[in-house]
């Protein structure tokens, strides 16, 4: 998290308060202020389409951040992320349909479902590792989806459960602009939670488990406890994302949560860059915007009418190609590119960092 390279030029911390501060230099504070200003003014200038895109990016960011926590930091592979989002969405859908539960009830309920499912998804991790763990989460994904589908057909909502837009304190959330701010706040809160978790005891424990379990155990870290904690926190946040997704879309249907969604989330953290929260955000934005970008590109080509029906397939194929390219050519993801850029300017005019002790 706190890599020394870009900011190591003569900045020393002199007390504990500085050490604990999230933003350490003035440049960082100004940067964040500028970012916040941009994010706040964006909805007032953006078109509804862009606004929708931004909302989707925020939703994806919550999911990607929680998956990054689990896979990128704690080292537990999960291919069942869509199942957890579905669980949150269905909890919301069922509660609003059956007892007309308001927003402030469905949100904690979804989080609670996430906690329970996190325990279930996490249990195999106590015995299994790597590939087998991935497979077990995959299986659990299908089981969650089955349960959701069963509810839909038995209750006669085969086209999906409709959900009314929620109201917050007498204010009904129908406007795209209002949604933008709600989702922005949730995404920012998720980011803050992740940052603080990772620089605390639990974050260090997860990284130790990721690096080598045996050593971590010898250091006195409770392996099973922290593994389960990672699963529980990650899936609780994911379910909250699912709950917001349900409200935002206004409809819940199992078709939205197929295996491809899980793969998209894994792609986000791979494309963004493993083991970096910034990577999760970049990956979420990339994967969410990608299909729209492809569509826009296709429109530039001639013979649009011929391809119009196949846009879905083109999207699919090019997504596969991009994923393969990232895996083979840039395993560090977008963050890897970003860091190389940073280093380039930092070291300029040199190409490599001089070895310590050689400059005499």
């Amino acid at each position: 998290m706190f890599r020394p390279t870009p900011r190591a030029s003569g900045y020393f911390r002199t007390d504990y308060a500085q050490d604990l501060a999230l933003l350490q230099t003035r440049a960082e504070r100004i940067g964040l202020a500028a970012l916040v200003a941009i994010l706040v003014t964006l909805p007032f200038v953006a078109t509804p389409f862009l606004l929708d895109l931004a909302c989707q990016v925020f939703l994806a960011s919550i999911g990607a951040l929680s998956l990054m926590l689990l896979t990128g930091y704690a080292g537990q592979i999960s291919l069942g992320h869509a199942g957890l989002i579905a669980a949150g969405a269905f909890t919301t859908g069922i509660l609003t349909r059956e007892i007309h539960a308001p927003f402030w009830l469905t949100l904690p309920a979804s989080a609670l479902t996430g906690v329970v499912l996190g325990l279930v998804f996490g249990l195999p991790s106590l015995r299994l590792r790597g590939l087998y763990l991935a497979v077990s989460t995959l299986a659990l994904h299908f089981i969650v989806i089955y349960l959701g589908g069963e509810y839909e057909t038995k209750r006669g909502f085969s086209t999906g459960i409709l959900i009314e837009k929620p109201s917050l304190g007498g204010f009904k959330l129908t406007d795209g602009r209002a949604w933008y701010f709600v989702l922005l706040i949730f995404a920012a809160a998720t980011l803050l939670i992740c940052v603080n978790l990772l620089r605390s005891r639990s974050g260090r424990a997860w990284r130790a488990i990721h690096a080598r379990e045996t050593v971590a155990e010898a250091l006195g870290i409770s392996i099973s406890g922290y593994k389960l904690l990672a699963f529980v926190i990650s899936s609780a946040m994911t379910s909250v994302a699912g709950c917001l997704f349900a409200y935002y879309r206004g409809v819940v249907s199992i078709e939205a949560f197929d295996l491809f969604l899980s793969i998209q989330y894994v792609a986000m953290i791979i494309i963004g860059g493993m083991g970096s929260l910034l990577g999760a955000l970049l990956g979420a934005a990339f994967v969410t915007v990608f299909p729209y970008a492809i569509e826009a590109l296709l429109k530039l080509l001639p013979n649009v009418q011929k391809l119009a029906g196949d846009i879905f397939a083109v999207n699919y194929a090019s997504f596969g190609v991009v994923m393969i390219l990232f895996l083979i050519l840039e395993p560090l993801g977008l963050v890897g590119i970003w860091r190389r850029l940073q280093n380039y300017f930092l070291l300029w005019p040199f190409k490599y960092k001089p070895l310590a002790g050689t400059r005499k």
Partner: protein
Amino acid sequence: MQLLINIVVLASIYALIACGYVLIYRVSRVLNLAHGELMMFGAYLVLACSSLFAGHPVMALCAAVILSIVTGALVYIFLMRKMTGEMVLAAILTTVALGILVRGVVVLVWSSQQQYPAQALGISNPTFTLPGDGHISLWSLVLVLTNLAAYGALFGFLRFGRWGMRMRAAGQNPLLAAQRGINLHGVYALAWSLSTLTGALAGILMALDSGVTGSMPVIALKAFPAALVGGLDSLGGALIGALIVAGAEVLLIYYVDPLLSDVVPFLVLVAMLFVRPWGLFGTREELDRV
């Protein structure tokens, strides 16, 4: 009786697909999640070949089978070769990405509607009545027999064939095998093409029996639990695992709820992972970290 036939046919489908997973996993420790898409690709190759060799169904089928072998080798040479020695997750995700790519290409070329290669080839699909009032279609019967033949051939090849022995050696200890002069890339490419071959055979026969759509890979995903229940590195295990999964699926659909169809194999899988993660006949191994 019909129930028994259903179980045997479904088990053959699962077994024929599962041995593809097993072959690749056993040799290179990579889980090929694109297996279903490659299988579907094989089925669509029949469609392509049927228009190429119009009027010669046997020629068309042979061409499709040969093309699928070549596809498997090409996948290894151009894609998976770069992932040799990488992290498990990266290798699995590469196969996932490959699967997405193949699926997109298939829909682009052949559209996502249901198609019937048997009609395109001009082959009929008569139904036989077996003693005990059971029905089985011709291509299902062929599938069962192909499955048995494929397993027989693979067993013989791995046990007695020169390349089969090399494959076993590479699976046991790649470094040692390479130092003894075994061409690892050749062995891996062979494993990929054999795996694609068996997958494509399953896909082609299923397509001849009941047509092919873009949702065919789901079947392969359901066959994966069969491979894991038997043990991911055991061929014989895959056969028995397929029987267990298919039996559980057919019986539960018949007696409990048809909606269960998609989820039964995964329930079996989860149960197995809790009890004996390395499968009935698999070797217990120290698994890699991410």
